[in-house]
């Protein structure tokens, strides 16, 4: 399939682009490891006080922390993925060039973001996770099936993450400046993805609400699938439903935006 090869090329190009920032990658590994250490100790103190908080035992809480550090850059939890480039292209008007390409705009950017995510996972995510597994007791499965299910959940999480940030980026067509949107992406991403605290440890009705929002598809679902805390099929359905809904919303917004596109600075 010709168009399939096109998007694969875009993804590969994006992978290579991020692979050139070697010092930045090493620095990122270091930072994620330091933050993981701080979080692990606070979670252990928390679970010491309240064993089985959110249905996790201590080893599961530790696993959750290092998984979060592993997925932080991979899923661009606080932003800074493809959407940042897209915002800049909308602001400068270069988006007009993208619109003339014989490719689907949304798929084009999705492919680029997938390439980026894959690099960040391998370059920045694996080492902090391995560090955590070596120095702290973790609850990792020993059979292949949960790991395979985890990979699927991760793939779906990548799409949901992209779909949210794509919507945010498109808003620049109306706002002209991405600064405020970036802040919103950052706040909602960190908080509702469960970087601060696992979503299943959120109390009461507030907890019930955050667990059905799309951000729950990003760290909480892959973590629960890996640790066997949830039925994988149910998790896939939840993630896929949000992916489809958000991508469709992105398409709608995209067609509304391109109908009124005003190219800046001609």
């Amino acid at each position: 399939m010709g168009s399939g090869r096109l998007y694969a090329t875009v993804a590969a190009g994006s992978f290579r682009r991020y692979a050139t920032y070697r010092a930045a990658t090493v620095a990122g590994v270091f930072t994620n490891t330091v933050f993981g250490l701080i979080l692990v100790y606070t979670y252990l103190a928390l679970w010491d006080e309240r064993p089985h908080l959110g249905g996790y035992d201590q080893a599961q809480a530790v696993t959750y922390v290092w998984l979060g550090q592993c997925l932080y850059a991979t899923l661009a939890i606080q932003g800074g993925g493809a959407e940042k480039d897209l915002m800049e292209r909308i602001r400068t008007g270069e988006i007009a060039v993208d619109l003339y390409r014989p490719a689907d705009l949304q798929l084009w950017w999705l492919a680029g973001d997938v390439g980026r995510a894959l690099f960040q996972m391998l370059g920045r995510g694996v080492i902090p996770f391995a560090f955590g597994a070596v120095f702290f007791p973790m609850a990792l499965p020993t059979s292949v099936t949960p790991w395979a299910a985890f990979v699927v959940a991760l793939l779906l999480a990548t799409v949901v993450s992209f779909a949210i940030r794509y919507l945010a980026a498109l808003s620049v067509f109306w706002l002209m400046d991405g600064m405020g949107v970036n802040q919103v992406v950052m706040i909602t991403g960190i908080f509702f993805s469960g970087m601060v605290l696992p979503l299943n440890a959120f109390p009461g009705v507030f907890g019930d609400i955050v667990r059905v929002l799309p951000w729950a598809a990003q760290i909480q679902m892959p973590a629960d699938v890996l640790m066997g805390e949830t039925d994988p099929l149910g998790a896939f359905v939840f993630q896929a439903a949000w992916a489809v809904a958000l991508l469709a919303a992105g398409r709608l917004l995209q067609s509304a935006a391109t109908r009124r596109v005003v190219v800046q600075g001609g």
Partner: protein
Amino acid sequence: MGERSVLLEGLRAYRLIAGMWVRSSMTYRTSFVVTVFGNLMVTGLDFVGILLMFSQVDSLGGWSLPEIAFLYGLSVTAFGIADLVLGSMDVLGARMRDGSFDILLVRPAPVLAQVGADRFALRRLGRITQGSVVLGWALVSVDVDWSAPKALLVPVMVVSGAAIFSAVFVAGAAFQIFAQDAAEVQNAFTYGGTTLLQYPPTVFGKDLVRGVTFMLPLAFVNWVPAAYVLGRPYPLDLPRWASFASPLVAVACCALAGMAWRVGLRSYRSTGS
């Protein structure tokens, strides 16, 4: 030119450049208000995280919520001041990569002042505001028998803490001269440091506490002096006078960071394209 006049000149340059950035950010007033508010939200989230934790437990590492709020308020306010004054240091790597760092070198003003004031952003007042609000709440709700030395120690902690964090920013900038695009390493020590200090030392492993007491003395921002104020056991069984050592530690840190900066600046090689 003596040391004193270099310092004065640096402050003057800093004031001028920072003033320019403030005026430019004030051009779009609504945008400015929105970003200050946004900053307040971003920095407030980690305290919301602590509140969420305390909705499930009564103490963390044996410390109560007001006590942890005391640590949090001190850490965030001190860090906020350092971040306001020198927070733009992390764009240094980008400036060296694109070659615009050279422009700063030929201007007749101290480079450190220019880099520090670069893109000076008043929106960073958000963090200081949020930290002081939490600190204020902690001061009235914490169970402490206030005495004159305890009350005086609080502002001393904020100022010394800001100086210690500033030293970390400057040392990080010096490191960036060698490492170029490794700005994130600096984040581990600045943002990581302030996050670490938001929780009591009893939460962390002995080696980590030792590291941030003797190697990178962040513990003197709040952990050690707060032990005296709150009547808590001293981390690592430090002597009682250690609680009052924060200003000395701050001066030593600034001197070392200044030296590192000079060494870094002297070894700078331009991209030369």
